[in-house]
């Protein structure tokens, strides 16, 4: 049952072959038995989940069930959950019991899902390996000496190990797609503004976007559709109708054009990764897709521009953590400045402090034009490249990450080398486009992901291509050793 799709689980629930209470117990038991070596879940919601499951069973009995009624899931610990600790992976919020829920959480609750718990993550979503978490690193279920990627590393590892049927994630520079690739699962980040950011703890507000980490594109379409929609509580939420994201899943991709940016297939791309992506592109070609070489001339500036925009916005967003109203407060502060400085100095980890300082530096008097304004200009150039590319092609394909999962500790002493592991994903956030990662094979028994990028609001098309790919391949059904039994 651990490998069942959402549709299969929903069919079993509605046919009363299993109750939501039983299904919830089944996955809580898997977490309790199997998560010890992974550390993917940091807060269990045992009682809340059981209550929600009882309620879901009543809705099913009344014949009012939707596709997600009674389906268990995990929430990334960046989403505020009323009455349940919301830590964002930080000591700063280790004692924070959220007084309200994020819109995403509300929507998924209303859809009848059962929240099993909250997943581990890089502190405040800043990291690419899940090693910056206050709660310790997450281990990759394919090989526990490896990182799961980040920042949504807990959600990625948990779904890969089948500790839950599906989970939420967030993506500011690749934080859904890169861990999905490292853990051999499917992940989607939609167009900026589709998923409400209300109650999703802010890192870089012009880039942050919630999304889904799942076993398959079909599952992702179902959950994402329940998450999107205009929210007046988020000032950047887009006022547009919700698309039927599953409608195009079974459409043929014959005649669809797939662009391969030459900058993402440069000579220094690891040949083993390249071979897997080439094979995946061949699968799309056999299904009738037309492959085209394209160019994104400014994409090489994504990482530099990102490390101005994201830290600048993070330094502003994280100024709210001041030790006064909630969260961590230092012991016996001698005055107000000491309270601010020590609460923040002790409450934040090293990577968060580095990024706050970079942000404060690039925004400090006299530097605005050289850094923030310049980065926003580069951002437009990057977006314009994508707009030009989408005049020629329907979707863009590449590797999700330049390597497979690396070893725990391999990059922790070198922030810049860590940052470069998001080299293929960051441009999508700067442009605000939707992006996915789908598993496309293994190199030395480590999963490889193919990234698919769509034009604005083309989530249904992305999911269509991913689903058609997954009809021809079985990489997404593979389960790591030790997790493939009931």
């Amino acid at each position, binding site marked *: 049952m651990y490998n069942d799709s959402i549709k299969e689980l929903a069919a079993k629930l509605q046919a009363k072959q299993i109750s939501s209470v039983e299904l919830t117990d089944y996955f809580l038991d898997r977490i309790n038995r199997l998560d010890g070596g992974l550390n993917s879940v940091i807060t269990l919601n045992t009682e809340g989940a059981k209550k929600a499951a009882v309620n879901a069973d009543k809705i099913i009995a009344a014949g009012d069930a939707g596709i997600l009624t009674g389906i268990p899931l995990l929430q990334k610990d960046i989403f505020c959950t009323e009455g349940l600790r919301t830590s964002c992976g930080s000591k700063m919020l280790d*004692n924070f019991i959220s*007084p309200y829920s994020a819109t995403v959480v509300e929507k998924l609750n209303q859809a009848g899902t059962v929240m099993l718990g909250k997943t581990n993550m890089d502190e405040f979503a800043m990291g690419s390996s899940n090693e910056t978490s206050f709660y310790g690193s997450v281990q990759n279920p394919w090989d526990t000496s490896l990182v799961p990627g980040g920042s949504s590393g807990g959600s990625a590892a948990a779904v890969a190990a089948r500790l839950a049927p599906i989970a939420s994630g967030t993506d500011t520079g690749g934080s859904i797609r890169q861990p999905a690739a490292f853990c051999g699962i499917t992940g989607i980040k939609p*167009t*900026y*503004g589709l998923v409400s950011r209300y109650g999703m703890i802010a890192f870089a507000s*012009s880039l942050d976007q919630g999304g889904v980490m799942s076993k398959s594109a079909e599952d992702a379409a179902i959950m994402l559709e329940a998450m999107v929609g205009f929210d*007046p509580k988020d*000032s*950047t939420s*887009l*006022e547009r109708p919700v698309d039927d994201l599953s409608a195009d899943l079974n459409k043929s991709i014959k005649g669809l054009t797939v662009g391969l940016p030459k900058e993402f297939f440069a000579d220094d791309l690891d040949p083993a990764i390249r071979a897997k992506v080439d094979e995946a592109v061949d699968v799309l070609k056999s299904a009738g897709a037309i492959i085209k070489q394209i160019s994104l001339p400014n994409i*090489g*500036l994504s*990482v*530099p*521009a990102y490390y*101005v925009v994201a830290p600048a916005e993070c330094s502003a967003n994280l*100024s709210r953590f001041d*030790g*006064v*109203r*909630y969260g961590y*407060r230092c012991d016996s*502060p*001698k*005055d*107000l400045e*000491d*309270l601010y*400085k*020590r609460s*923040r*100095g002790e409450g*934040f980890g090293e990577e968060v*402090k*580095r990024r*706050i*300082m*970079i942000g*404060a*530096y*690039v925004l*400090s008097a006299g530097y605005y034009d050289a*850094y923030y304004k*310049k980065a*926003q*200009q*580069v*951002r*437009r*150039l990057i977006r314009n490249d994508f707009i030009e590319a989408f005049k020629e092609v329907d979707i863009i394909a590449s590797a999700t990450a330049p390597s497979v999962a690396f070893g725990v500790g391999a990059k922790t002493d*070198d*922030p*810049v080398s860590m*940052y470069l592991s998001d080299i293929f994903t960051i441009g999508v956030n*700067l*442009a*605000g*486009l939707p992006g996915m990662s789908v598993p496309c094979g293994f190199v030395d028994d480590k999963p490889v992901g193919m990234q698919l990028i769509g034009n*604005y609001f083309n989530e249904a098309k992305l999911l269509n291509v991913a689903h058609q790919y997954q009809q021809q391949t079985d990489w997404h059904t593979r389960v790591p050793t030790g997790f493939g039994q009931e």
Partner: protein
Amino acid sequence: MSIKTEDVINIAHLARLAIADENVEGYTSDLSNIMGLVEQMQQTDTKGVEPMAHPLDQVQRLRVDEVLEQDKRELYQSIAPEVEDGLFLVPRVID
């Protein structure tokens, strides 16, 4: 482009972050490396390019000025480090 130790001390103060003296050197080197990466942007000519604030060039939405939130002071203060009579307490600011 290189960040100096006095820059780190100044930025940490601006950001109200207490950092230990023995870590200043490490931050100086890390921040210099990060700014080295950032400097690659300067290679590109961006003269006349309009800075991009929102991917879809959306502007801030306005709303009717009406009270929607309920008073939840007690709930919000129940998770505060220190409160008294409905006020958040901090060390004395004015003697």
